[in-house]
């Protein structure tokens, strides 16, 4: 019923979909799987009319279609159940279901009774008991997913896209959702189902398509393949010698944290970090790695946690204390919480260390600051349009180098870097990797959080795998023996 031919898409010159083919049949559940950034979400957003494709054809029911707006796709019979729900919490279930296709009279006044009745009928058909008059905000996330499905049904959708519908559901809610999905399937509705949970996909889907790096890798009948095949297809590439060598020498424990918890995100995290070591934190987006690191410096209020730095107990009650003691956290989001984009690079690099740059009157010495910035420009090969350029005018890779320089200027003993090379080109990436390894070799303990599996494996001497706010595995990687399959096994539910 849906047939995509050679669909391409790029963002800011970065191609995220390379001439992709994809099709869905009526009455099938078609699973879509791939690593973060493989292009799945971009693809389904194009199908649902939220993004515009750059090239290629989309056929729906044998007709060439070109949706400029989500509403057009909905009218044509394509609905999407979003990962972050698109429902409005303050208004009722019935009103949410009929939003933008209200049952109303010619003057535009809503017929609430008809809408409630319509919603109740849909719920009855789905076999679920949800009160159409309840505000959506009072429902559990699982119930809200079902309301989204009901909305799709009310629009007479013949193709429903579900973008990670189970990522925040409990086992019981997932089972309930699957009952509904099977029923939809039996009525000839096509379903695109995105999930990271392989076991789920094997349970619910008929066919499975793997994406990697914006390319369609394979489409297979679910009966023909195994979990191992899928992981192999998802991961695919070989790492080669892209990364610097592992630690030459690992010293004593420099930092220990015990029972770090953050309510709703992280549970009882305990680990230690040694001098000269790079510790990698792997896991899927949302598995609690970033939240755990932010909880350590108490950037987000933690529930519990004890810390030892160089064998002496420290409280780490706020990011300022952490920094004073030499524990520096580098945010994953350089634009929002990493850099002062409106200022030049010297102001950014010295932001945490202004007290070091004083002239003889005790005032800030811009000259000293600028000299220091210049040394970083050399060591990190930061490319500037001009000396006084604002940071916002730098490329992503150079911004990331400035961010790293800012973190290095306080001379940390423990450096925690979150997604150190996100959205950075290959050249800057290998330079950042080399600097991080040099730093470890000089005796600093380094923690790298990364969603890019080759990076975690290529860089780390030891890897902690996160899932559901907990560490599910600790893998020794001194010899480089850890494979992506090993990490993936511990990062996903089976």
């Amino acid at each position, binding site marked *: 019923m849906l047939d995509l031919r050679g669909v391409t898409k790029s963002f800011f010159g970065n191609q995220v979909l390379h001439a992709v083919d994809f099709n869905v049949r009526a009455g099938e559940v078609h699973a879509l799987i791939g690593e973060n950034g493989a292009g799945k979400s971009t693809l389904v957003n194009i199908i649902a009319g939220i993004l515009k494709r750059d090239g290629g054809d989309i056929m729906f029911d044998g007709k060439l279609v070109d949706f400029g707006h989500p509403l057009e796709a*909905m009218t044509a019979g394509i609905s999407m159940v979003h990962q972050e729900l698109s429902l409005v919490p303050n208004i009722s279930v019935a009103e949410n279901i009929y939003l933008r296709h209200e049952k109303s009279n010619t003057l535009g006044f809503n017929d609430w009774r008809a809408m409630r009745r319509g919603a109740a009928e849909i719920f009855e058909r789905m076999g*679920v008991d949800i009160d159409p008059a309840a505000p959506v905000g009072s*429902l559990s996330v699982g119930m809200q997913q079902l309301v989204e499905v009901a909305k799709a049904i009310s629009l007479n959708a013949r193709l429903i896209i579900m973008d990670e519908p189970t990522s925040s559901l409990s086992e019981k809610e997932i089972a309930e959702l699957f009952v509904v999905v099977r029923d939809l399937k039996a009525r000839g509705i096509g379903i695109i189902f995105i999930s990271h949970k392989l076991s789920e996909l094997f349970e619910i889907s008929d066919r499975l398509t793997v994406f990697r790096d914006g390319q369609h890798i394979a489409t297979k009948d679910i009966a023909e393949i195994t979990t191992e095949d899928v992981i192999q297809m998802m991961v695919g590439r070989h790492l080669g010698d892209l990364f610097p060598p592992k630690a030459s020498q690992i010293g004593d424990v420099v930092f220990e944290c015990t029972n770090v918890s953050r309510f709703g995100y992280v549970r009882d995290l305990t680990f230690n970090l040694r001098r000269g070591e790079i510790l990698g934190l792997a896991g899927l987006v949302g598995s609690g790695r970033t939240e755990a690191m932010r909880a350590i410096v108490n950037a987000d209020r933690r529930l519990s946690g004890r810390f030892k730095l160089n064998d002496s107990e420290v409280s780490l009650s706020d990011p300022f204390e952490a920094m004073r003691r030499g524990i520096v956290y580098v945010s994953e989001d350089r634009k929002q919480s990493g850099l002062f984009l409106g200022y030049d690079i010297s102001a950014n690099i010295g932001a945490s260390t202004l007290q070091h740059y004083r002239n003889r009157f005790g005032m800030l010495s811009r000259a000293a600051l600028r000299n220091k910035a210049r040394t970083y420009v050399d060591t990190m090969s930061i490319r500037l349009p001009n000396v006084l350029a604002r940071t916002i005018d730098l490329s992503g890779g150079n911004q990331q180098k400035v961010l790293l320089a800012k973190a290095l200027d306080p001379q940390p003993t423990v450096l925690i870097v979150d997604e150190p090379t996100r959205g950075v080109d290959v050249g800057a990436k290998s330079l950042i990797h080399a600097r991080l390894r040099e730093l470890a070799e000089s005796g600093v303990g380094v923690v790298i959080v990364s969603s890019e599996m080759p990076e975690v494996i290529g860089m780390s001497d030891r890897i902690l795998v996160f899932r559901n706010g907990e560490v599910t595995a600790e893998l020794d990687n001194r010899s480089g023996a850890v494979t992506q399959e090993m990490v993936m096994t511990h990062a996903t539910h089976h």
Partner: protein
Amino acid sequence: MPPIIDRQSRAQRSAGQKTALVQYIGLFAITLAILLGTQLFFGNVLTAANLEVLAMNLVFEGIMALGMTFVVISGGIDLSVASVFAFAEILVAKLMVEAGLPVPAAIVITLVTCTGIGALNGFMIVAFRVHPIIITMGTLLTLRGVNLAITDGRSISGFSEGFVFLGSGKVLGINFPIVFFIVTALVLGVLLANHRFFRQLYVIGGGERPARLSGINVNRVKIIIYMLSATLAGAAGIMAAARYGAAHWGHGNLAELKAIAAVAVGGANINGGSGTIGGTVLGVIFLAVVHNAFVTSAVNTFWYDVVSGVMLLVAVLLSRLTQRRNLFAQLRIRQAKMDQIATSTKGESL
């Protein structure tokens, strides 16, 4: 195929509705208590003359608060209403007194001009993607300057009998501006509660991303709402000119804050997504009654601002507490889910 039982949602729903209802009943009860209290202690409160004074005192701010309710629900704010109000006074006065236009023509031209100012507000907000507080503050100050400049700081008077009716005339024994307020509140209240166009405001105020994903033309709706707000402020200005018998640039100074206070006291979330006309009307009545209590009790009226300020703070504090509670509830749901997954997968890894 086990049906999904959701007893919880029903219980929670009635709880949610109860909170809103309790809020309104509470506000109404406090208002009534103050009214009866002042009657009991000082007398002369529940007389026709005093009630008229009481109502007329805040009726213009009340009309502006109606438009403000729409703006606030959609997640915006309109500070410019006060100077649109004074501008309408001056424009309608100039058109009648200086240009000699007939009353209906002057009113229509004035209202259309105010609608245009609202459209400009809305357009700048959606086009520049600047927070409405800045854009409408710019309009507030600019227009106040215009008002001052085009009148040289003097007031304009000399209106016809027919025009003065709009300020002091009575319909069924009630002052025309109050009748206007009641009718407008009823019409807008019904529209906001039931009309599919106005229901979109709650969606936009709840989050612009979901609103866009649902196919709502967010920019268009926003512009129309600022047009509505400015038009109501213009209408209030025209009636005020008739009421005072003169147009002056200083009229309505700080009215925007009183209108916002009424909306906030009436239970709307200042960040958008919730609020009702009924709540705003209660908020307006509350502020008017508190003011009246000062007048009748002969306590220095200057203290009035202190009390309405404190009331506003209390109202905002309460809504903040509710938000925090909701946030914590969400965290609790997350934690429960984590616990559940952790128990169901225990022993399978590590």
